[in-house]
């Protein structure tokens, strides 16, 4: 188990190093001088040169990269060009809505996807299976921003059940915040439930064709017992992976939904940074999102390995 963990950890570090390298050099390909961008149209050549020196932008690219990596390793993601504060602080302020949105969305997705997948597998080929599989297929192909706009029209504007957008006033209690998250989380939950449904169905069908299930049935056990006691737990192990990865991808992947619902999360921060070419923020967000993704991935792998000893060996 320790060897498994160390091997995964090494892989994780390599991936993160590659992400950082990619993000740094790609950003340097971008047109426009960050110093000129920071100072605006009125800046003189001398001003720009001075700022370039302050930020070390006049040094060779590899030296800049080295310095940048050193800063990241000490937890410093740089200074935002427009927000007048460190990138880590900007990201920290935006983390809460994104975190709860991801958590809430993945819970809804799992609550829809797992029961739907099980029902589909148990009644395989029947009308319920076809209906659920069909719905999952449609859900997977709905653009989340479009569904968001429709939900806003229906549940916020017409019915007035939920707030149209935003995350409540700065000091709003958690329940009010939660109310703001219901619509965006439902949108993401529905769209992301599709994959979980399909995965649960496939995993359940796999298990239901195993010998020990046949044995359980031939012992005369009730079908309910076979499905819940014997099949369900085993089928759920691979589903953990999908649920975990869905959560991981939602951390930075809810950009469009955050924008539609005006949620002040990390996605929203990235979009405004992109539109304003605030590269330090974009770089920092990408690195943090990738780090969260690989860490959740590692956690999922570990849970999987604990639950299924065969994985450890492979």
């Amino acid at each position: 188990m320790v060897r498994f963990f160390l091997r995964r950890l090494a892989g994780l570090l390599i991936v993160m190093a590659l992400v950082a390298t990619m993000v740094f050099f790609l950003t340097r390909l971008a047109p426009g001088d960050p110093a000129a961008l920071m100072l605006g149209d009125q800046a003189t050549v001398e001003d720009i040169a001075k700022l370039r020196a302050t930020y070390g932008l006049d040094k060779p690219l590899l030296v800049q990269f080295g310095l940048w990596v050193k800063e990241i390793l000490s937890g410093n993601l740089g200074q935002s060009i427009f927000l007048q504060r460190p990138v880590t602080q900007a990201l920290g302020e935006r983390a809460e809505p994104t975190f709860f949105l991801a958590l809430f969305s993945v819970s809804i997705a799992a609550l829809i996807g797992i029961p739907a997948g099980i029902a589909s597998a148990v009644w395989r080929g029947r009308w319920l299976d076809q209906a659920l599989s069909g719905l999952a297929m449609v859900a997977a192909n709905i653009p989340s921003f479009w569904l968001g706009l429709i939900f806003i029209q229906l549940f916020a504007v017409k019915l007035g059940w939920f707030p149209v957008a935003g995350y409540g006033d700065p000091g709003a209690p958690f329940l009010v915040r939660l109310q703001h998250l219901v619509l965006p989380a439902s949108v993401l939950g529905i769209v992301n439930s599709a994959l979980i449904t399909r995965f649960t169905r496939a995993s359940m069908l796999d298990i239901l064709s195993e010998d020990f299930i046949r044995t359980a049935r031939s012992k005369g056990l009730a079908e309910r017992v076979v499905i819940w006691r014997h099949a369900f737990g085993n089928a759920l192990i691979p589903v953990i992976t999908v649920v975990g990865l869905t959560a991981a991808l939602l951390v930075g992947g809810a950009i469009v939904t955050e924008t539609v619902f005006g949620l002040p999360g990390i996605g929203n921060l990235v979009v405004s940074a992109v539109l304003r070419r605030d590269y330090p923020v974009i770089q920092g967000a990408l690195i943090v999102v990738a780090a969260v993704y690989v860490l959740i991935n590692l956690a999922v792998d570990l849970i999987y390995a604990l639950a299924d000893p065969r994985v450890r060996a492979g």
Partner: protein
Amino acid sequence: MDAVTMSPSNPVRLFLKRLFRRKLVLMATIVLGVIVLAALLAPWVAPFKPDAMRMARRLKPPSDVNWLGTDEFGRDILSRMIFGGRASLGIGAAVVMLSMSVGTLFGLLAGYVKGLDALIMRLADAMMALPDILLAIFLVAILGPSAGNVVLALSIVYAPRVVRVVRASTLVVSELPFVEAARALGVSTFRILRVHVLLNVASPILVQATFIFAYAVLAEAGLSFLGAGVPPEVPTWGTMIASGQQYADDAFWVVLFPGLAIVLAALSLQLIGDGLRDMLDPKLRKAL
């Protein structure tokens, strides 16, 4: 039609016959065919010019004249959707071609050339550690918003998926006896890859192509909606929703119909992809 194309042993005919055995796949193909044809023949089939403004008829609901209503400038929504399909589907198709070419090349190399495997796969892992839309918006920010750059950005985003699929199939195929025989005969690596491996990994590539087409259509719409895609004056399904959203309170049709076009196109592509996969992969066919 001559006798050759009519014969049931014609591989194309046989292929289509098996693919369309599932009614849903046939329906999806028809729907997609109609959407593609409408986009291709847009100047002839669209009832109005896509940019013809008539302020007197702005934000009018669906009617005899404007079947799907009009937008904030009195432009006909159906006509804009038909023209918008050109950009949305065109970008999707271009992304498929570019990401497939690059992804297949690197997938073959990773699967066949042992020394390159680790490097290529770790790079693919790194790219896949970022959510698609986040990586895409980052790349468009660097490249600048234009249709060509959206294609480039989305191709970079989806190429690693192709690499993974092609590598996995290549690993299997390159262990088969006929590849070994070719190697023993001294056939060059390039020729082995091109003739013996590529042809045998073609079916997963084809399946992946339809899925990536669907993802690309969805992603393009998302990017355009965020203002980080095609310039807003170009009608695509995404830009139509983006510019229409502020009028959605009074005129829901401005947002509803372009979105339906996206869903229909993406759904049809997915269904066709599923149909192809089930047909080409005997293991999966059993499970379904």
